[in-house]
């Protein structure tokens, strides 16, 4: 049968088919491109890779701490993707229903230190790792206040506690030494200055540094005789709990550490995270928490 196409017509037809194939290819490529970009930005596959490492390293760091501490990790939701974080036997798993499979990371801990099996779903908001003794627990924020730190049960009662109940807010570092309680906050947050008491031997300073790399630090020298590290640990623990009760669960790390100070004698040092700076720049509430802690310590 004779074909009715001319040479020119046949040539055009080939060209048209080729053009159509190109067009289809371009459309497919564009769909693939947008799909990949959409998945990268909203699908959470990057976060699924990132969070296990973040939390695994965090738990490893918590496990290495010689003291009681807690750290909060903010977990974001990527688009509609919500993550499930679980852990058992030195492994942290992060998965999402919208994404196939899970990502995992490992936790290194000294012998005897371990964490309970946990599963948090959906893991949005802040997830906390809390270490007390050899046990590490992982909590959601709304469960955290139920697990205030257990403080050393030693007697630190002072009969004249009533005379110590003055909290001083100042931005003058030179005034910290030699005064019972001083709270130092950034200049912008100075609320009031209360005349100082002059009792020697105990100094409390809350330093909220303005620099990005500096954290809010509480120094406390409990003074007195006896087991000073344990006294410091008790007070540091009470301060952490009081701050939590005043502000709710704080965002970041609180780490009571025993260290020498530029102040008078040894002291407990509590490092708060950058995320808590906003809360801790409310002097009245900080004072209230510190006084409550001191009352529990001395009262």
């Amino acid at each position: 049968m004779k074909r009715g196409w001319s040479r020119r017509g046949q040539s055009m037809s080939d060209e048209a088919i080729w053009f159509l194939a190109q067009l289809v290819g371009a459309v497919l490529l564009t769909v693939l491109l947008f799909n990949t970009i959409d998945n990268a930005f909203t699908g959470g596959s990057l976060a699924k890779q990132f969070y296990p490492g973040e939390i695994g390293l965090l738990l490893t760091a918590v496990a290495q701490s010689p003291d009681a501490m807690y750290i909060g990790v903010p977990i974001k939701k990527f688009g509609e993707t919500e993550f499930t974080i679980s852990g058992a036997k030195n492994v942290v798993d992060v998965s999402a229903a919208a994404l196939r499979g899970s990502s995992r990371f490992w936790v290194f801990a000294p012998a005897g230190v371990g964490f309970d099996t946990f599963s948090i779903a959906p893991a949005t908001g802040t997830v906390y790792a809390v270490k007390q003794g050899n046990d590490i627990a992982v909590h959601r924020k709304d469960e955290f206040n139920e697990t205030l730190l257990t403080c050393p049960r030693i007697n630190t009662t002072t009969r004249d506690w009533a005379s110590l109940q003055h909290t001083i807010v100042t931005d003058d570092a030179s005034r910290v030494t030699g005064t019972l309680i001083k709270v130092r906050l950034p200049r912008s947050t100075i609320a009031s200055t209360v005349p100082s008491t002059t009792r020697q031997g105990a100094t409390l300073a809350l330093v909220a540094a303005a620099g990005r790399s500096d954290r809010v630090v509480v120094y406390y020298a409990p003074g007195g005789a006896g087991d000073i590290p344990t006294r410091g640990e008790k007070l540091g623990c009470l301060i952490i709990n009081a701050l939590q009760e005043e502000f709710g669960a704080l965002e970041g790390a609180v780490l009571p550490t025993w260290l020498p100070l530029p102040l008078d004698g040894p002291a407990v040092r509590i490092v708060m995270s950058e995320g808590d700076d906003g809360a801790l720049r409310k002097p009245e509430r900080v004072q209230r928490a510190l006084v409550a802690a001191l009352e529990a310590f001395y009262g």
Partner: protein
Amino acid sequence: MAKGAAYTMFELVRYSLMTAIVVIAIVTFLSAYVRIMTDTRPTEAAIYSRMLARADALHEGVLLVPERLTDETLDGILAHPDNRFVGAKVTLTDSVSGEVREAYWNRRWYDIYKPVTSTPGPGSAIDVATTWNVLVATPQGAHPGLLNIDVVTPAR
């Protein structure tokens, strides 16, 4: 016919080249501006290095005790029941006496991964070496020393 066929072949090659250029451009754009994966191994290695260098188990106060620098001690600091992910070689050099002491964290897998650190791509590993200034406890008193930690971790 021959002329028409040559024209079609020219077009075919031209379109193919154009398609290849567009695909390469898109892939380049994606890899340059859209980050799907991030290699966090150097940061992880730095963290492990710090944890080993500052571990309480190696120190007496601020002094590093050379006798405590053993494979068993290092494995106890960062312990895991099935560690196939990372290992390290720790070398302590006493800057006064010149004495050198070595120990390994997870030696089995360090020895496996170390030879492939110079090879890029899948199946390879990276090594991150960090040197820490330490004070070494000796019978003659505290000596300045260097603690070199070579952390090796495989591609994943």
